[in-house]
């Protein structure tokens, strides 16, 4: 074990640290400029203007108009609103929704709830890379289909979906298309018009903005009911006093991410490729997700014969924060539904490790992480009854 005490954060798909420029932009709206944007005096106007600036910043990052952006409490609310809002507002047209088996729980638990309300949902399978087939989307559409919701990029394995193709099919068939872009926004280019997207969810804390902030893009042809009822905020579509500091932070974070995206994604994807290559040098390891069409920051690798939670615990002792799709991790005893949908056997899923790189990741970090993962994998393999003799060293 390496004695040097370090802290390396490689769980940027879970959340990111809020960048300093963002915090600086937010602070005045928690102190001096604290007015409620709905009030009619000067400091309230400052708040209202700041919210509108953020709306423009978000719109600009995804090729939308400011009036098409609605602020939410995060990606989960945006997903819930898009799916439930469209389902209930369009019930007279049909009750069928199409999604995939690898969506985030914010989508899957929402569609499962809608099934209890009488909606029918098709859960499309994915290939071994976790990719949805546009042909499958086309085949699943019926005259009762009112919504297609397919994520832009998968949070566990990083696979980027053929969103533009799916959007084209949806538009041709006259079906609304929502995409959960929570993992993608701020990291890969998105244009709601070019990609024929009717609704897009994003979340501030995934691109170095504050937690508890998100947005839903709603295109002009979308008929949608509100999720939150109350005041007249967000043009009567999303009630509740605006989270002004959060919204300001979200706007600033996405503006900076969009401006730096090309350079930053290039740098991070180079580090990602080195990390993948070095981890795959460990015998009996495999990459999950698509080898090329994947998020710039996502690495998901399986190490046979060992279990993910054990890997995480040992890495944590070495100052490395990571994630796993193992059943034994954290609060859930269910193995990753994403890795299962990719066709991986249970025993393989148990040994998965997700490392998601971020702005602070350096070449040096990659070296340290690789060295420690080698040690941890060997230590756990020495302990496992499944490990073949040739892979043991004690």
């Amino acid at each position, binding site marked *: 074990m390496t004695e040097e005490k370090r802290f390396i954060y490689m769980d940027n798909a879970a959340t990111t640290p809020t960048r300093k420029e963002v915090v600086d932009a937010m602070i005045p709206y928690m102190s001096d400029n604290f007015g409620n944007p709905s009030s009619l005096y000067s400091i309230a106007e400052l708040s209202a203007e700041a919210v509108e600036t953020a709306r423009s910043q978000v719109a600009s990052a995804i090729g939308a108009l400011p009036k098409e952006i609605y602020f939410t409490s995060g990606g989960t609310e945006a997903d819930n609103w898009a799916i439930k809002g469209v389902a209930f507002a369009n019930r007279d047209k049909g009750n069928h929704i199409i999604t995939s088996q690898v969506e985030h729980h914010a989508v899957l638990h929402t569609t499962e709830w809608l099934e209890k309300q009488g909606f029918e949902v098709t859960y499309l399978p994915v290939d071994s890379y976790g990719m949805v087939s546009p042909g499958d989307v086309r085949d699943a559409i019926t005259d009762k289909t009112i919504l297609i919701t397919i994520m832009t990029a998968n949070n566990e394995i990083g696979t980027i979906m053929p969103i533009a193709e799916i959007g084209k099919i949806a538009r041709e068939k006259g079906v609304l298309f929502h995409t959960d872009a929570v993992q993608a926004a701020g990291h890969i280019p998105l244009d709601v018009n070019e990609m024929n997207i009717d609704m897009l969810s994003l979340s501030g804390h995934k691109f170095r903005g504050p937690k508890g902030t998100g947005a839903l893009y709603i295109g002009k042809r979308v008929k949608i009911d509100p999720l939150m009822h109350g005041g007249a905020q967000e043009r009567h579509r999303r009630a509740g006093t605006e989270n002004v500091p959060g919204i300001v932070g979200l706007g600033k974070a996405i503006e900076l991410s969009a401006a730096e995206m090309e350079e930053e994604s290039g740098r991070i994807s180079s580090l990602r490729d080195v990390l993948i290559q070095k981890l795959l040098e460990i015998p009996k390891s495999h990459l999950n997700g698509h080898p090329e069409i994947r998020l710039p920051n996502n690495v998901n690798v399986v190490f046979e*014969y*060992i*279990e993910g*939670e*054990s890997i995480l*615990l*040992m890495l944590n*002792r070495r100052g490395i924060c990571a994630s796993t799709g*193992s*059943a*034994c*991790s954290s*609060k859930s*005893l*269910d*193995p990753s539904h994403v890795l299962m949908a990719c066709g991986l*056997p*249970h*025993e393989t899923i*148990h040994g998965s490790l997700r490392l998601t790189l971020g702005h602070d990741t350096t070449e040096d970090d990659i070296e340290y992480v690789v060295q420690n993962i080698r040690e941890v994998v060997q230590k756990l393999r*020495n*302990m*496992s*009854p*499944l490990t073949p003799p040739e892979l043991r060293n*004690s």
Partner: protein
Amino acid sequence: MYSDKVMDHFENPRNQGTIEDADGIGEVGNPQCGDIMKIYIKVRNDTIEDVKFQTFGCGAAIASSSMATEMIKGKTVKEAWDLSNKAVAEALEGLPPQKLHCSVLAEEAIHKAINDYRAKNGLETWEETGGHQEHHH
């Protein structure tokens, strides 16, 4: 999530490995469930003279194996049989509720190893409880 004791046994497992000429071997769990525990025992004069384990599983499973082997080493076969999963969990200063099955796994692996030893020596096997099969992932 885990006590210092669990983390100590997880990072520095006691009695890890195999016994080539074991008198009894017990294996429980399966790879689908995410944990397998294998216990090897060496018995002399009705006493567990040596014990080793191999475990595929989470931190709690590894720590439970390590602690359980420590607790039965030097004990009579009957005393080892009577080691409860509760005693293992208590010795580890507690396990999270969803991880208690890991200590059950240790108890069962020891039972299987002892019955393997008894069967090989022409002794009647004792009745196993089989609690782990009741837990669901």
